């Protein structure tokens, strides 16, 4: 099953974020965007590939994307 994921790149690898992204892609990560200012890669991956992605040097965390919603009730 393919899921959307966010990959945090470790602080010591932030200046190599594009290299880390390249290694992730080689291991099946479909790379949608790079967020260099916060050191995050956005994309999708097969669930069974997640342990491999987590083991890549320079990868701090790989997390499944969550749905987010507002926190309010409104009256017009």
């Amino acid at each position, binding site marked *: 099953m393919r899921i959307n994921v966010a990959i945090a790149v470790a602080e010591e690898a932030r200046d190599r974020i594009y290299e880390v992204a390249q290694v992730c892609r080689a291991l099946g990560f479909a790379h949608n965007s790079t967020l260099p200012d916060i050191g995050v890669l*956005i994309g999708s991956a097969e669930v069974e590939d997640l342990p491999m992605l987590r083991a890549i040097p320079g990868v701090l965390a790989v*997390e499944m994307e969550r749905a987010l919603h507002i926190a309010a009730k409104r009256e017009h």
Partner: protein
Amino acid sequence: MRTPRNAPAARQAPGPAYTGRSLVLLRERTARAQAALLRHAAGLRIAVSSDFATTRAALAPGEALLFERLGAAVLDADPEQTRALTRRHSQGALLLEPERRVRARLGAADSGAGPPLADTPAATWGLEATRVSSSPYQGRGIRIAILDTGLDLCHPDFAERAVISRSFAGDLPVADGNGHGTLCAGIACGPEQPAQGPRYGVAPAAALYVARVLDDDADGTDGQVLAGIDWAVRNRCAIVSLSIGTPVAAGDSYPMVYEQAAARALGAGTVLIAPAGNSSQRPDTILPVEHPASCPSIVAVAAVDQSLAVAAFSNGGVDPDGGAVDLAAPGIAIASASPRPALYQTGSGTSMAAPFVAGIAALIAEADPRARGAALREALLRAFRPLAAPARDVGAGLVQAPR
């Protein structure tokens, strides 16, 4: 046991400093021996603290409340009993002192017992409660990013404003098709003199950056939100207000991706502020602070009502691993902007409380040019007024604007 020199009398008349009762520290190690000494030496009746669900404040005359684990007791002894204990005190068998009144050193805490605050013709109740109305600061020169459902860029209260905006919600424009984003942007940055009604914006002079990360149903994804955070950091926004969340299970740890992103944002000079969440049903159910506010590097905001009591829906810091509430802010019946044609609306939620804190962060940043990133976060967490509610529910207290 030594008798302290210059000790006050064993029992003092009730007054501002003393309760009229006595405090005794016992040498005996077991509760049984402690109780026996008090009973035999002074004829006191013994109540043991562990027999009660809560510590009793009231003692009957001639009674001692024994805290057996501490080896101490509070006594309401008559003069004869006090004399008997004083003799044992002078023999070194125990230490006897008058019980003092104590109070927290936090300053006056709001109990919520006063009359509820209300909107006035000049300002919404939240601006009064947070001291924004009387603050000389307006957020001038400070960039605030609102990550939400967008903004009605042609709203009369924003049409003259230079708003920097971008959508990360697929092909959707920045124009707010939901209303939540305009409501939140209005609270953080609405004008000093709106087209209609009282002032509702905390930082009217702040530079407003709007990142649309949610669709018209107010739904979004981590990818969109993280892209918005990255954009705000790149644009050197001092503050990011994201009134979004998703519930977490009790005991869940905070997400590393967001924590790392928030920590890097702090390092780059950007403070992230998010709502604690609205899924509680107090007093019976208090649910944990939601994602992403659960991250330690993100300022988590609870909601209070017009009586400064915690809102029934406001989530609490019930998870030991992250997920603490940092501050509270107004979050009930908050008037602000609405997309045309309504122009104005009222909302309730921790979604409303977070932009209050974001706006006040801008006022603090204007007041102190050194306050950016982690320093701004620290200054913000010091800008509070104590509340009677526990820190689990309101963090340090009600956020306050700088004077």
